[in-house]
């Protein structure tokens, strides 16, 4: 029923980091202003906010109305979309629906997370609200420990050698160097990874993306509504999908398979009429190294239990067959919580426009991006394509 292409007309982002001096609304405003300007001044009729934790960490709900107001857009439609760590992707999905339906001409999607207002056990508790409060977090379970449970079993079943997942963070950190919006801009060596103390065995500090503040924004419209003289190569959203899996990790029939990640990618490829081998880059959800490995398998880029080999063999590097985390991923760009899916779309658009600087993937035309909520209880996938 879609009669036209949905275009990512504007992109904006803040540096990901510990913004002690900036509030949630200030960060969001910066990203919105950048995206609006980048779009050539398109005027949004609807705002979707992707956010995960503000009601817990900042005692602030109802961000739709708050950010519409602070962005000088008082009056427009606004709401908040939450799907755990996939909140930003889910907000992008709503923007896509709003513009596709024809009920809005221009949609603004902003992902924002303000982690650093709270530290310590209260932050861990807020993060654990993504897991099952009656049957998981009540036992002291956290999302990090769920990833550790997965990694432990993955290593056991697939007989992964020590350090087998190291190249996920190493690649991410190498790519972060060239991204001026990244939290970490220094490459790390294997020795640094190997010497790191375990944080939540078998995960060490480099297997876990750092939580940090950030905001990113997108302006979406239909192709015929692009302003005259639109200055960028035109990038369209070729597909938008969400799929779910069991909520609790324990209820998975097959623990080591990200079923929602697989389903959302299969559906996206099918809807857009592409195959995996056409994908020029993959922004996966490397909140943990193990998530990156399992996401590669779920997508079909690697066989079961073989995702880590793509990292070991350099296939995911900027110069590899399937560049991943091309601007640092969650590990080096940082994990801005519910903003992550929007950051991924901003980064993919930059790649497809040829604006990725020293990290540019030559001739990139098709980007696959995916974010996950909980232990892949939700997966949101988008395909972006450069239009000729």
């Amino acid at each position: 029923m879609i009669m036209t292409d949905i275009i990512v007309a504007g992109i904006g982002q803040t540096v990901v980091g510990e913004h002690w001096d900036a509030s949630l609304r200030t960060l969001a405003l910066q990203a919105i202003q950048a995206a609006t300007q980048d779009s050539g001044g398109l005027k949004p009729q609807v705002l979707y906010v992707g956010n995960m934790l503000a009601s817990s960490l900042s005692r602030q709900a109802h961000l739709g109305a708050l950010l519409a107001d602070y962005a000088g857009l008082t009056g427009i439609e606004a709401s908040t979309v939450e799907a755990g760590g996939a909140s930003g992707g889910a907000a992008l999905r709503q923007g896509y629906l709003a513009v596709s339906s024809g009920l809005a001409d221009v949609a603004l999607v902003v992902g924002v997370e303000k982690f650093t207002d709270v530290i310590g056990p209260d932050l861990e508790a807020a993060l654990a609200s993504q897991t099952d409060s009656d049957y998981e977090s009540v036992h002291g379970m956290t999302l990090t420990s769920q990833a550790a449970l997965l990694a432990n079993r993955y290593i056991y079943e697939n007989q992964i050698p020590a350090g087998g997942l190291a190249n996920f963070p190493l690649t991410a950190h190498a790519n972060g160097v060239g991204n001026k919006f990244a939290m970490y801009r220094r490459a790390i060596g294997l020795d640094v990874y190997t010497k790191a103390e375990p944080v939540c065995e078998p995960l060490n500090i480099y297997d876990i993306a750092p939580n940090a503040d950030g905001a990113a924004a997108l302006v979406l419209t239909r192709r015929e509504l692009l302003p005259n003289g639109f200055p960028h190569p035109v990038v369209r959203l070729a597909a938008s999908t969400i799929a779910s899996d069991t909520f609790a990790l324990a209820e998975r029939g097959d623990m080591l398979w990200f079923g929602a990640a697989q389903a959302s990618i299969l559906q996206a490829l099918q809807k857009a009429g592409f195959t995996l081998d056409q994908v020029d880059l993959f922004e996966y959800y490397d909140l943990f190294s193990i998530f990156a490995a399992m996401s590669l398998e779920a997508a079909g880029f690697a066989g079961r239990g073989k995702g880590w080999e793509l990292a070991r063999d350099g296939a995911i590097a900027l110069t590899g067959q399937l560049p991943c985390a091309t601007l640092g991923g969650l590990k080096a760009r940082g994990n801005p919580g519910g903003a992550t899916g929007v950051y991924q779309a901003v980064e993919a658009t930059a790649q497809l426009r040829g604006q990725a600087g020293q990290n540019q993937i030559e001739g990139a035309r098709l980007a696959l991006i995916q974010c996950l909520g909980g232990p892949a209880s939700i997966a949101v996938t988008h395909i972006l394509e450069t239009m000729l």
Partner: protein
Amino acid sequence: MEIPRHWRLNQQRYGLVGEVCPHCDTKIFPPRDICPACGQDAKTTFAFSGRGAVFSFTTIYEAPTGFDETAPYTVALVKLEEGPLVTAQLTDLGEAHPEIGMPVEMVTRRLRSDGDERGMLIYGYKFRPVLKPA
């Protein structure tokens, strides 16, 4: 104050009580009234034996509020004899180092200590290594 919620979950937490599907005999934990295997109504209660084996485990050092006083602690997925996996802490490990496959059995322990104004203590299932006969 979260007393009603914990009162509501007491049966599952103290006795590891789930459900059995009257249609396909699948054992269900936690109870959910709809069988995840066949999709039909499943409201028949079923008490699990509490015996199982460690499917995976890890140790938490950076704990959420309510658990930070007891950190570090070890959490696990336990594969119950009757089929389901259960999320729980391992306890009474003593000198034992947990391993995948280690036989464990259910015990009742304090789950979290809310040191704040909520005040309430919550008890429920944990798993300990199966004691060898003397």
